[in-house]
């Protein structure tokens, strides 16, 4: 290992900037470790004990900035040092040291952008409701990203918005695409004639991406927040959004996605749908679909695309049936590679809707399904940190996210869990979702490839990627990298779950 360093006399940066630069340097190819710190006596002692203190850095003083890099080769070390200036400039920009106007209040923002008609609110839940009301009073639609908004406040906001002819997306609305602009965790999708209303965040991302990847497009994608379809809120915004899309000139087909609404809310939705002259495709994940209609996010998206393209929904059925035969073959091949005793699937999800969809699909294929967020027939896990039989975990639940970023941004916890599950001799398949788009990790392949490569030695790793080639991460590039690492990449969460379920079925028959 080569250790190199630089002293920058009297250079001051805040800790966020330095953390960011240190992480970027440490993540470079060929770099084993890096640190960017002030040259205090204590820091030099820590650098020294980490093997990161070349002798020339020992002279640095308290007010000097130290850059230390440990790399596999001299070339990698020099290359890392060469980019420090650029990274510092970039990080300073990201931490807000630019001179652009940054309003600190709603009123200030309206002065800067008087024509704005939507406010995206992301502040602590207990203040978010009041901010949202102020936005509504100013005639703005609201996307309320914040969670922990009291239920009474949500109802008050939505009633007020309805009366004012405005929309409130949320609380806890993680994604929306309005007039082609992706908001919060959203993907870069084609514009088109399919309008979406969703009370399921990653569900909306999945259907909008599948629609786009199929060559069709989205007119508007409106998230309502999961609580909207519960009895207390009564589906106020789900219904209002449906009315908006019914009137919208560019929307030809409407796609509804949600976990099962309260029966009373479902009755109101059904009643409203009957009055709409446009085709409406609906998926209430986990609801009884024996009467027909799509049963997965993928099927719902493909059906909407077919209808928008003037084709019959039956074409989708035929296509999925044909794919099912491929899945069976692939499952047989993967099952044959597993040792005796390997018999369970471990699903580690960053998207709550995917976790629910997995459980619903598994409940039709395998028994003994446990989850920290049970849906369908799955049972509650005793301890979310310990898997039981077939386990499906929603890593976006509060128990995993308090004090740390969402798993779509920070892969640390999931990566550790992947390796732990792979060590379990009963694990046969690890099932993952990888969600791309704005807000998600900028380079998920880099985060996942190493652990997949390791896990792949013992288990099958099956994953789906929710994203498009126009997303900042580029879906195709991520897919190539994950395949190269040994993952089996499926075109949708439903397909990934079906493959995993088939493998477990075959192993159960041994």
């Amino acid at each position, binding site marked *: 290992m080569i250790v190199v360093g630089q002293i920058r006399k009297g250079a001051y940066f805040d800790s966020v900037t330095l953390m960011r630069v240190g992480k970027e340097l440490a993540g470079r190819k060929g770099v084993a470790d890096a640190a960017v710190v002030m040259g205090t*006596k204590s820091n030099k002692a820590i650098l020294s004990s980490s093997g990161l203190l070349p002798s020339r850095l020992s002279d640095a003083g308290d007010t000097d900035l130290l850059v230390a890099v440990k790399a596999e080769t001299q070339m990698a070390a020099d290359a890392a040092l060469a980019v420090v200036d650029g990274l510092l400039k970039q990080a300073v920009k990201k931490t807000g040291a630019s001179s652009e106007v940054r309003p600190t209040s709603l009123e200030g923002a309206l002065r800067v952008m008087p024509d704005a008609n939507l406010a995206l609110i992301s502040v602590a839940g207990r203040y978010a409701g009041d901010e949202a009301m102020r936005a509504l009073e100013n005639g703005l639609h609201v996307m309320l990203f914040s969670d922990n908004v009291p239920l009474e406040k949500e109802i008050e906001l939505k009633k007020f918005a309805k009366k004012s002819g405005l929309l409130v997306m949320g609380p806890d609305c993680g994604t929306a695409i309005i007039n082609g602009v992706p908001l919060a965790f959203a993907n870069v999708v084609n514009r088109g004639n399919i309008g979406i209303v969703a009370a399921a965040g990653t569900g909306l991302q999945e259907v909008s991406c599948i629609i786009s990847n199929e060559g069709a497009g989205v007119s508007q994608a409106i998230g309502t927040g999961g609580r909207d379809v519960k009895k207390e809120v009564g589906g106020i915004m789900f219904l209002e959004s449906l009315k908006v899309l019914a009137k919208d000139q560019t929307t030809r087909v409407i796609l509804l996605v949600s976990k099962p609404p309260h029966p009373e809310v479902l009755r109101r939705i059904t009643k409203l749908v009957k009055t709409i002259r446009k085709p409406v495709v609906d998926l209430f994940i986990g609801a009884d679909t024996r009467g027909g209609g799509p049963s997965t996010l993928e099927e719902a998206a493909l059906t909407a695309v077919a209808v928008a393209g003037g084709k019959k929904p039956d074409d989708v059925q035929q296509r999925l049936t044909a794919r099912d035969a491929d899945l069976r073959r692939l499952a047989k091949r993967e099952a044959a590679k597993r040792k005796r005793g390997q018999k369970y699937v471990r699903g580690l999800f960053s998207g709550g809707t995917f976790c629910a969809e997995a459980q619903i699909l598994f409940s039709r294929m395998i028994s003994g399904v446990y989850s920290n967020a049970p849906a369908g027939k799955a049972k509650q896990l005793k301890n979310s940190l310990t898997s039981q039989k077939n386990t499906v975990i929603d890593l976006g639940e509060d128990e995993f996210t308090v004090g740390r970023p969402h798993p779509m941004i920070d892969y*640390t916890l999931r990566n550790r869990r992947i390796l732990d599950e792979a060590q379990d001799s009963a694990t046969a398949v690890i099932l993952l979702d990888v969600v791309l788009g704005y807000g998600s990790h900028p380079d998920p392949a880099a985060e996942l490839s190493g652990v997949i490569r390791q896990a792949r030695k013992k288990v099958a790793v099956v994953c789906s990627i929710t994203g498009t080639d126009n997303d900042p991460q580029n879906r195709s590039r991520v897919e190539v990298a994950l395949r190269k690492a040994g993952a089996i990449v499926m075109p949708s969460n439903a397909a990934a779950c079906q493959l995993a379920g088939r493998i477990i079925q075959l192993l159960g028959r041994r």
Partner: protein
Amino acid sequence: MMLVSIGDQIEEGFYPFHSRFNRAVNFKQGDRLVSVVNKEIGDGPLNIVVRDLPAAQGQKPLEISVGQVVFEGHAYRFTRRHRYCSTLEGGIAVSPRFRHNLSLFGELLQTSSHPKSLAFLLNDKRTQSFRSGFERRFAEHVQHSVRQIFGGNRLTGVGALTGCGIGLTPSGDDFIAGLLIGLNLHGTGFRGLAEQIFAAARSDNIFSNTFLDLARRGRLFGRMKNLILALGRESEDDVRKCTESLFAVGGTSGADLGTGFFMTLWNGFGAS
């Protein structure tokens, strides 16, 4: 530019330019800094808060005379009502309510602070955020130093913790400032100890020296003062709000300071 407040520790004088950041312009007053800051940074004993901090305009000195600040060549008037009082007027009683709220503050440190803050000292699981070789060593070093401080080997621990961490004001210094603020709440009986700790923690870092000096003298910046006052009141919501405001200071600084403060009061450092 409108002057919002001026700290009660700022004296009349002529102060040379030291450094400029996005939200603050710093000037030297002996071995400490007087800063002209925007409202996001807020009140402090050595802060002059202005409504809109103008873009960089050179490195002119700061001039303060009776009722007037001259900043970047422009004069701004101020009166007594602009003075920010940095002490806890009337003091604060460490009541059962205070202890209850302090416990809530401790929980918030563990659940809502920056993952790389020193709150891992309260919850081992948080060390998982320290992943690189350097970060792991850093966490071990901090744990060892803090164990020394609370194990009776105070000044050695303080010496080892000083300057520890990345950024303008290293995490270790922030922790020690929190410790000094906590000691001050225990009363005048710990003044001698606070002086010793300050002496052990002094370095060439003028930013750290400034706030360590203020902390040992019980001079509080606005967000910390608000938190301490909230700890003595009934409303848990106030505690949460003030905690959030404290955590917004720097990258990890607010939480590091809060950890030092919490551990000092919770562990009965002063009493031992």
